């Protein structure tokens, strides 16, 4: 299609066969299909797709797109933009630095996926294709055009077998020219814009009102991000982030703080605060699993210890320590300290084990916590936790006269109860992120990584393996306990059931671990993203109901097959390689290349 793929010239030497497209069309037609199809797809969003407003989102009004039609519009717009960039329109070149086909193909596929999903969903839910208005048919055809166009683009490897060809169409080129150096303020402006767009996209995802919209949203976001990845733009952005680390962090927190101000319904702030709690705990687990390499399957117990401690000292009338009402800072410290003690108590005997044995023992301790809490009701054991009834009616927090239970008006925005807790949780997450990044980049952090890489060699380098692992375990536990203290207040009550190994809703140990692995071990953003995804999926896709665990398992298997390093890979080091110009670096995977264990020290 471009300079890199050698556009077939009519009088070219016949020696190298000119790359051809999968769909036999001339290049000009392919590009025209892409552009025209993209515009048509975007335009078709303004038509009426169905006759009844029974399908959620009201897709019946011509001229006013609703719900899923906006997603089709967005996807069509992206396809159009990329088609224009492929034409070489001035000012859009940055969209396609490698001039490859993959971004075009993936954007076209994204539009196709979301449109056809909508059309099929309308037909399936309303009972047959008769429910489609002509606009629906037009949208379906329009979204197919860019796909045809994209696959008609000339592509190397075309003709070596369909599978290879398809792979080549969506492959990211191995070498993408380095971007021109830009002024620092431009870099910051780019980061700011991306943060704002990111906040918008994320907020839209949280605010989706029905499952179909969320599925469509996922289609658009996944294909768009994939397209940006193959275009090399994500790599460029992470290079920018690496160069402006503290600025990005500040922007990230600004965006996190801005989130409740964009919400009108406190329900979505509730989702936000739960994601933050989940994400904070996952980040704590990332210290244990991602840095020190200790597989902890009972981690949620520490969240439980923190929550129960906070509940007991909260002044709840059902608390077994009646009359004690500590201020929040004290109860937060108490929760973290109790979890820390618990972590040391569990860690001291178990951390002498390695690998699978540690996983089994931590799994056992996690369950022991839940069962013990269930039984400390005054009949089977001492009366501490009220057994299965838990500790209800935990009062709302009151910090410096700011009552978290009431809605507050700040600068014209109304912050509801959950929005208040959300902001508190942002603060706590900031602390956890700070602790994580500082600990990781220090003597103790290096010794954790060394232990993870090769425990024998690490001890031979003078690292007291047991002690260092215990510090990681206790630190992770304390951070989870800190998050637990807030979660007790957010949910009004503390009961034993959520603190189990596996369940269909987060947080539980399996979901926490999955969030870390899915997002990317050893990174800050990874577990947070993983937690957001894992919280939103069961929350939004209610129609999956009890099958959500099945779907979740399948998704996890697919991810581990195709991207074992997690969504956000720890690519700081890869970048360093690219800067030194060494490109033949093997792909970094985290789950392979386990050194064969031979005799110690051999």
């Amino acid at each position, binding site marked *: 299609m471009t300079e890199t793929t050698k556009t077939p010239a009519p009088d070219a030497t016949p020696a190298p066969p000119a790359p051809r497209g999968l769909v036999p069309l001339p290049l000009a037609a392919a590009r025209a299909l892409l552009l025209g199809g993209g515009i048509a797809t975007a335009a078709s969003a303004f038509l009426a797709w169905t006759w009844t407003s029974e399908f959620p989102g009201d897709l019946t009004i011509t001229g006013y797109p609703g719900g899923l039609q906006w997603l089709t519009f967005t996807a069509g717009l992206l396809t159009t933009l990329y088609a224009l960039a492929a034409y070489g329109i001035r000012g859009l070149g940055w969209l396609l630095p490698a001039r490859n086909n993959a971004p075009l193909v993936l954007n076209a596929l994204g539009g196709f996926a979301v449109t056809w999903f909508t059309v099929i969903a309308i037909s399936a839910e309303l009972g047959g294709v008769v429910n489609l208005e002509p606009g629906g048919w037009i949208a379906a055809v329009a979204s197919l055009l860019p796909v045809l166009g994209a696959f008609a683009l000339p592509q190397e490897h075309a003709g070596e077998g369909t599978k290879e060809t398809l792979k080549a169409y969506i492959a990211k080129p191995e070498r993408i020219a380095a971007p021109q150096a830009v002024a620092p303020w431009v870099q910051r402006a780019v980061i700011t814009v991306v943060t704002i767009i990111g906040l918008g996209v994320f907020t839209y995802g949280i605010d989706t009102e029905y499952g179909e919209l969320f599925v469509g949203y996922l289609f658009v976001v996944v294909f768009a991000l994939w397209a940006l990845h193959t275009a090399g733009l994500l790599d460029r952005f992470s290079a920018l982030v690496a160069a402006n680390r503290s600025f990005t962090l500040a922007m990230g927190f600004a965006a996190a703080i801005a989130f409740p101000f964009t919400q009108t319904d406190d329900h979505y702030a509730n989702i936000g605060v739960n994601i933050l709690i989940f994400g904070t705990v996952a980040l704590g687990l990332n210290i244990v699993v991602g840095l020190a390499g200790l597989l902890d399957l009972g981690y949620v117990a520490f969240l439980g210890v923190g929550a129960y401690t906070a509940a007991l000292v909260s002044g709840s009338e059902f608390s077994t320590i009646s009359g004690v009402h500590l201020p929040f800072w004290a109860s937060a410290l108490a929760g973290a300290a109790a979890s820390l003690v618990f972590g040391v108590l569990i860690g001291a005997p178990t951390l002498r084990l390695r690998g699978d044995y540690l996983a089994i023992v931590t799994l056992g301790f996690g369950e022991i916590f839940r069962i013990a809490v269930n039984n400390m009701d005054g009949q089977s054991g001492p009366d501490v936790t009220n057994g299965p009834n838990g500790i209800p009616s935990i009062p709302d927090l009151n910090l410096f006269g700011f009552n978290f239970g009431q809605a507050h008006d700040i600068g014209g925005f109304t912050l509801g109860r959950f929005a208040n807790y959300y902001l508190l949780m942002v603060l706590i997450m900031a602390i956890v992120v700070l602790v994580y990044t500082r600990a990781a980049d220090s003597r103790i952090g290096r*010794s954790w990584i*060394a232990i993870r890489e090769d425990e024998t*060699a690490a001890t031979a380098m003078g690292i007291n393996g047991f002690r260092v692992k215990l510090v990681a375990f206790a630190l992770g536990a304390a951070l989870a306990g800190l998050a637990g203290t807030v979660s007790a207040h957010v949910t009004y009550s503390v009961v034993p059931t959520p603190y189990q190994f596996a369940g269909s809703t987060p947080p539980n140990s399996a979901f926490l671990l999955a969030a870390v692995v899915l997002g990317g071990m050893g990174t800050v953003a990874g577990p947070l993203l993983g937690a957001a995804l894992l919280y939103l999926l069961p929350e939004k896709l209610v129609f999956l109901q009890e099958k959500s665990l099945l779907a979740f398992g399948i998704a996890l298997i697919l991810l581990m097959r195709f991207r074992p390093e997690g969504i956000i890979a720890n690519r700081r080091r890869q970048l360093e390689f690219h800067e030194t110009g060494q490109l033949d670096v093997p792909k970094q995977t985290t789950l392979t290349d386990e050194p064969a264990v*031979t005799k110690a020290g051999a």
Partner: protein
Amino acid sequence: MTTPVLEARDVTMRFGGLTAVRSVDFTVNAGEIVGLIGPNGAGKTTFFNCLTGLYVPTEGTVSYKGTVLPPKPHLVTQAGIARTFQNIRLFANMTVLENVLVGRHTRTKEGLWSALLRGPGFKKAERESEERAMELLEFIGLAHKRDHLARNLPYGEQRKLEIARAMASEPGLLLLDEPTAGMNPQETRATEELVFAIRDKGIAVLLIEHDMRFVFNLSDRVAVLVQGEKLVEGTAEVVQADERVVAAYLGEPFEGDPGEAEAAEVEAAEAAAEAPSTTSSTKGEAK
């Protein structure tokens, strides 16, 4: 030359019924390079592991500069004995610099709190560690690769990096387990120079090696370990001349049939004539 850095006394290591190392006495003096050789399975690495605390010797003690070492690897390193491994055990997913910084672990003491609070002391210690690590990387000639992942280094450089990592713990004694295994002659020669340079820094070196030329070129003394027992110890000439060493590597010379005295005489004469050439070939080939 006479103060012992390392003193192993009566070290015995049994695995169930198998005695891998049998009451070995062994000393390394300050500023010495000592070689430890022996056929495969003689217990060299096991003996190394006993010295460095990876194994707890069944009997006997190991002392460093007069103090008895506890059999805990990190305490041994803290005391001042650092080691490398027979098959390289770098931290593969850490950078070259980070590998060496891990080696500095025992010589720094910034804990979790100082890492979280980032006071001036922390920054100073980190900077000093990095400076020291960079000095070492320059010493072994890997300074330009500081940000590469250890796993991506060529084999010979991984060996060197392992030595630098061990040296980062500021040891008084460096134990090298087959430092030239898998190296070509040029790399072996470079390693030879590196070991001399390490000795010139005042670090005593104890090395296990199968490359006889390398060992005899380097070592002030060589000890031979056969089936867990120390057979001979002495200078290169003494060890090379010892028939038992040759026997251990190549097998006993055929004694001959009792009935055929003549043949035995001829054989004895042949053996006597071939003796010098056998030793010299041992030097180069025996592995």
